[in-house]
């Protein structure tokens, strides 16, 4: 049983023209499809049809798509989610363009998840036959891929248990009220494989999006991204800096509708048998922003 990755983030935008300018010209995503009030994108090193969907009208998250390794995983996840007490519905091929049959449910945190096994393979921009290191005509930041997201939930501990039970995720790092066994979980960073996190959950209101992140290679690329944000008048929330948690290098910034995005580089390799790192609230500032060592106003309050 394996969830391979967050396959797509589907978000609302208030103004499609401005959003397209941001995701295509600043971030460098490739438009693969558009219909009605939706536009579909992939990044250059992704092969499936899309990883970002923009929907005009409102702000915030519509849903996340998760791609599983085997079609039998869909049945297994349906069974596990149902056992957890969540209502699961079947979704059929084509409900999302170029995405196969799957399942859909609303998590205990009121976020909509879709799980699927098949997506139309477009291929990466460098192909598979003697591929070059990167496409030479990247636009803007030229992000290679969608990486992870952070959502908020009234009960992050419940989401930790849910993602463990249903997706077979494991936590790589947590923020807890203390090191005692009765501690409450304030935030959790979870993954299915070696990626340091695929989804993090922070205490806050249900159904909200904190950010979704694109992958970059290293500090230099993160710094260059921040330079481009200044050139394009993209509001930067914080960074370039490092997260103590995950050790990733980061810039938090906002899309033209106010959805928070991130570019994220690094982060150490995660393993199921690696002892989990635990942060306590006294060091949370350093855990989130390793250099400023204190949270900014926006970290816990600015959500869409």
């Amino acid at each position: 049983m394996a969830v391979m990755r967050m396959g797509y983030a589907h978000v609302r935008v208030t103004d499609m023209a401005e959003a397209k300018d941001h995701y295509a010209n600043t971030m460098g995503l490739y438009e693969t499809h558009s219909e009605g009030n939706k536009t579909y994108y992939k990044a250059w090193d992704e092969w499936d049809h899309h990883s970002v969907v923009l929907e005009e009208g409102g702000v915030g998250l519509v849903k996340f798509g998760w791609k599983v390794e085997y079609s039998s995983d869909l049945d297994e996840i349906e069974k596990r989610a149902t056992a957890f007490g969540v209502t699961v519905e079947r979704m059929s091929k084509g409900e999302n363009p170029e995405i196969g049959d799957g399942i859909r449910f609303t998590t205990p945190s009121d976020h909509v998840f879709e799980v699927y096994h098949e997506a139309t393979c477009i291929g990466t921009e460098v192909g598979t036959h003697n591929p070059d290191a990167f496409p030479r005509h990247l636009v803007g930041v030229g992000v290679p891929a969608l990486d992870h997201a952070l959502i908020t939930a009234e009960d992050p501990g419940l989401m930790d248990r849910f993602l463990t039970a249903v997706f077979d995720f494991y936590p790589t790092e947590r923020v807890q009220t203390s090191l005692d066994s009765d501690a409450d979980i304030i935030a959790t960073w979870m993954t299915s494989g070696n990626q340091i996190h695929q989804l993090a959950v922070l205490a806050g209101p249900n159904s909200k999006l904190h950010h979704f992140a694109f992958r970059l290679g290293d500090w230099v690329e993160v710094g260059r991204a921040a330079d481009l944000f200044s050139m394009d008048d993209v509001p930067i929330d914080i960074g370039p800096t490092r997260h103590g948690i995950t050790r990733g290098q980061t810039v938090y910034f906002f899309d033209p509708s106010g959805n928070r995005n991130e570019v994220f580089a690094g982060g150490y390799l995660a393993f199921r048998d690696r002892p989990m790192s635990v942060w306590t609230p006294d060091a949370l500032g350093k855990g989130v922003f390793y250099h400023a060592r204190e949270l900014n106003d926006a970290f816990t309050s600015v959500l869409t």
Partner: protein
Amino acid sequence: MPTVRIHPTGEVIHLEPAETVLSGLYRAGYSYTVGCRRGGCAICKVDCRSGEFSYDHPIADTVLDEDERTDGTCLSCRAVPTTDITIELRGEDVRLVNPFLRQINEKARLRAEALAAAPAGPTTQE
């Protein structure tokens, strides 16, 4: 051009054409609690005590509910005053973070005063 008066401290900010409240305050050197600056997070709400404004982008229902569209709530990063307005911040005062920029606002004030004092006659130019 419209002005923004901050109640109760009395600062007056002179706006550029089509400028938002947030942009005007920052351009005059002031800061207050803001988040996305793009109309999405609802953190920058202030109360409009008098005057008129409109929004330069559609605002999501999750950001402004129906009541807030008529009760004087002003999402300052998207609100463009159409008349002089008076606003009150929620639970804080503006902070002057860049005193050099205040000189620019001061110049705008002097120009506006000179314009108002000019004898009536052929339309004065900018």
